[in-house]
């Protein structure tokens, strides 16, 4: 699946799933711009992607005007974004009884509002081009819920609703909008969980193992490719059979 000559923007590309997505799209021929929240993070992404001609850039999704400025810079230096992967996300887990407003707001801003802002920012160029791919990284938690993640699950379910609505709005312009919903993937985010909880979770996975970031990246590559031209508004669950919605 070749993405030769296409400009792809992957948010949160420093580590884990985002890093695997950025590398995979770049290896498939896309000109990848991976974002990190710090200069040093962006530099590290740039080094990693350099072999394929990709670059790292700084993006703090919460910062006013930051996304629009980034899209402008990319358009000038590399061309219009043809593939947007909204991957950047954080967790602020805790039981609802104890959840602070800050924990809720931080998740909504970083995980959900950023999807709205980035998708809107790339849309003008995609509408003109009469083609485009937007792929939002949701989560199995957004579909099945998880104790201690009311904020995260709400944001991820929100992404799925956003995806369906946007897909209906822009479908007539050849732009597809889809989600990939990772299950339990072996990353820094999940390594932070206590071992007993990890074991219990693995017991619910039909394939009996954690997923790899590459499993998610491959699903994103498919949705970004011409092979997925007739798929829009969908959530592709990549979870080893942990949930079969």
């Amino acid at each position, binding site marked *: 699946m070749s993405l030769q000559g296409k400009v792809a923007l992957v948010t949160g590309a420093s580590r884990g799933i985002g890093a695997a997505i950025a590398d995979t799209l770049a290896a498939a021929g896309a000109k990848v711009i991976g974002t990190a929240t710090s200069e040093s993070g962006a530099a590290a992404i740039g080094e990693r992607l350099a072999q394929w001609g990709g670059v790292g850039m700084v993006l703090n999704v919460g910062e006013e005007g930051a996304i629009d400025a980034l899209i402008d810079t990319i358009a000038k230096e590399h061309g219009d974004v043809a593939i947007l992967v909204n991957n950047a996300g954080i967790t602020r887990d805790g039981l609802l009884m104890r959840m602070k407003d800050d924990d809720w707001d931080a998740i909504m801003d970083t995980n959900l509002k950023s999807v709205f802002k980035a998708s809107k920012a790339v849309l*003008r160029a995609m509408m003109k081009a009469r083609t485009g791919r937007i792929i939002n990284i949701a989560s199995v938690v957004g579909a099945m819920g998880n104790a201690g993640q009311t904020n995260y699950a709400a944001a991820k379910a929100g992404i799925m609703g956003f995806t369906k609505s946007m897909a209906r709005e822009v479908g007539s312009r050849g732009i597809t909008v889809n989600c990939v919903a990772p299950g339990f993937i072996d990353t820094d985010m999940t390594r932070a969980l206590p071992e007993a909880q990890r074991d219990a979770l693995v017991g619910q996975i039909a394939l009996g193992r954690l997923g790899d970031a590459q499993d998610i990246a491959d699903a994103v590559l498919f949705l970004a490719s011409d092979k997925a031209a007739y798929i829009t508004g969908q959530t592709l669950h990549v979870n080893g059979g942990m949930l079969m919605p």
Partner: protein
Amino acid sequence: MENIEARVKKIVAEQLGVNEAEVKIDSSFVDDLGADSLDTVELVMALEEEFECEIPDEEAEKITTVKQAVDYVTAHLNK
């Protein structure tokens, strides 16, 4: 003025995929030319680019006919 009208009509025809001859000065984008809501947004974007101006959303909503587009552009280009 005529020049602006011709340019607006050309853009309308291009954006909405209609024959330029069908685009009259009093044509309504939605009722006469078959535009949907997304078409009208795109049309405003195209006008902004053609005339190198920015049309605020409140103003853009009021532009529903060729004449309104021509009037808006004329008024704002003269400033």
